[in-house]
């Protein structure tokens, strides 16, 4: 019997008085891969921001239960410590802060939260070597400032590298495929697949079916106007690819 990881119930949220999510429901078990698709402006990126705890968005009703705990009022860092990871659509640059230093700080902060000693430099570097190989991250990038001067592909690969280092329970990939050529896409997808286990789950947010050829979802959901209007297996993605979204936008859904 698979174990429940996260349950989102009737989630509503707004930004600047504009309602974006309007009663969203989603259940994800450990070991699953979920794809969330939908037209522009349907609320896909909002969902990832809200799950990660971005306080620009106000949760007005509903609940997010993550590993048995209500997290809709929890700080982003605490969610992170509990195993939430967001691979950003547009990873930000932090000049002067090396990737290595950034990740070491992140891991140490988490260790501090759990009352664990900070990770010794030797073990940390060993881990960096292993994980960067996993996602094919260029050695030089590890010592460069976080995302500064990285190409689009390098930034996305760096996100997956960070994901590997932090070993999250729930990974949300927000349009990780955007701006990637097919080779980079394969590398990123390959990294994600390697990190998959029966203990964690992945949410893939995407516009295109293409990524789902490489990261095969167990479930596909269509998000429209802040609600999931259809769910299915991976064949739904193929259908969407062929037909677009319009056939789903029936009156009752809108």
């Amino acid at each position, binding site marked *: 019997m698979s174990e429940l990881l996260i349950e989102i119930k009737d989630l509503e949220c707004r930004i600047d008085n504009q309602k974006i999510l309007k009663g969203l429901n989603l259940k994800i078990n450990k070991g699953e891969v979920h794809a969330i698709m939908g037209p522009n402006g349907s609320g896909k990126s909002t969902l990832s921001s809200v799950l990660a705890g971005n306080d620009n968005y106000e949760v007005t009703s509903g609940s997010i239960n993550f590993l048995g705990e209500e997290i809709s009022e929890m700080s982003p860092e605490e969610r992170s410590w509990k195993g939430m990871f967001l691979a950003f659509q547009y990873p930000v640059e932090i000049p*002067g802060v090396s990737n290595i230093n950034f990740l070491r700080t992140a891991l140490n*902060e988490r260790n501090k939260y759990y009352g664990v000693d900070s990770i010794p430099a030797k073990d940390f570097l060993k881990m960096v070597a292993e994980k960067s190989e996993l996602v094919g991250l260029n050695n030089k990038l590890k010592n460069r400032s976080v995302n500064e001067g990285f190409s689009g592909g390098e930034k996305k690969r760096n996100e997956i590298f960070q994901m590997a280092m932090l070993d999250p329970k729930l990974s949300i990939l927000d349009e990780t495929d955007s701006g990637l050529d097919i080779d980079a896409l394969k590398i990123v997808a390959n990294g994600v697949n390697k990190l998959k286990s029966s203990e964690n789950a992945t949410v893939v947010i995407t516009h295109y079916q293409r990524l789902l050829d490489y990261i095969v979802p167990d479930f596909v959901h269509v998000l429209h106007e802040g609600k999931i209007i259809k769910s299915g297996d991976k064949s739904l993605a193929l259908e969407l690819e062929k037909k677009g979204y319009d056939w789903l936008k029936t009156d009752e859904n809108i």
Partner: protein
Amino acid sequence: MSYTEKELKEELDNKSYEFGFVTDIESEKAPNGLNEDIIKLISSKKNEPQWLLAYRLEAFRVWQKMSEPNWAHVKYTKPDFQNISYYAAPKKKKELQSLDEVDPELLRTMEKLGISIEEQKKLSGVAVDFVMDSVSVATSFKEKLGELGIIFCSFSEAVHNHPDLVKKYMGTVVPHTDNYYSALNSAVFSDGSFCYIPKGVRCPMELSTYFRINESGTGQFERTLLIADESSYVSYLEGCTAPQRDENQLHAAVVELIALDKAEIKYSTVQNWYPGDAKGKGGVYNFVTKRGICGYRSKISWTQVETGSAVTWKYPSCILKGDYSIGEFYSVAVTNNFQQADTGTKMIHIGKNTKSTIISKGISAGKSQNSYRGLVKIGKGAKNSRNFSQCDSLLMTDQCGAHTFPYIECENPTATVEHEATTSKIGEEQLFYCMQRGISEEKAISLIVNGYAKEVLNKLPMEFAVEAQKLLEISLEGSVG
């Protein structure tokens, strides 16, 4: 000694005067106000030779004809110079019995800076039963310097023990006519530091005022003179990361550096004067004139981390007189709450093939105003000179200000002058990114700010750099808005 009969008599007269004075010196404080009698009083109390008194008096005459500059981008109530006492007997700090009597806010900050309990006691004026290690360290330190012929002492000691050097170099880089505050300092300076590195000597340790024996607190009008003789090297640290509270509101120091041919001086400052409270009340006015002069193939490098003072007016500069000489200025200036800083540098290229680098990183938070003001001047004869300037500003809130006033004067067509400037606001996106990875907001700010200032912090001596990083963290606590 090359004293004339007259000087000797003068000195003896002064001495007896001083001795006569000593009995009630503990309570003695010069009356408020500034006039020639006060200056004579200061000079006689310090038992100074005639030439120094003459220098002070001349400076005073010049000062009287000057007016306080108002071109800086700062607003403050001008001090009433006739309402200040210019001489007070070296005061004993009120001794406290235990750390319990010390302002807890001060202790909290010192703890965060990683200052040991013993040091905390010393810095906050608590009586220490056992005089801590630093005295013995300082003694062996002095012995070692002495073996190399390095002179490192208070300015007053130097006036008496090395008058030739003082007389030869004092006022040659910052003349008493230079500006309002340097004239004032020249007239009334209390004490300061003197340092001389002999020819060809590489000073084996970082010289720090912290280790100077006989230091009786920082004066209101400090004067520093540092001479690096030919082919010598010295790294000098000034200031302290611990918060410095001082009842004197006005501070006007003068620092002169002389790098003779092929010499190198590295001068690092961490300044953390009391900036006033969160509402902008109180705080120190810091009006400093710092300048160095470079001989042939010599180098002067200024590095400063400025986090304190209510108002800062400070432009550590280099006169690149010798051919192939190099001037550098690396600065991080943080302003928070209602602080105002107008700081930068002047690079005066006179010799051929001279080079200068300016890296200035301003960080503004709260409702503060942070300005960079810099002059790059290439003289007619400064063939093939080069300058590179980079002035970055980081804004933490919507209510603070960052300003850049670069001045470039170029009189030689073979020179290259480059100026780059950026302004950025600490991004919500950057913070959220860090927080998503499990880095708390406070830690994230410190990470981002330290990354931003890294180029400058890297120029500081190692142990100073670590303290400076923590200092930035503390100065910006809870400052994003």
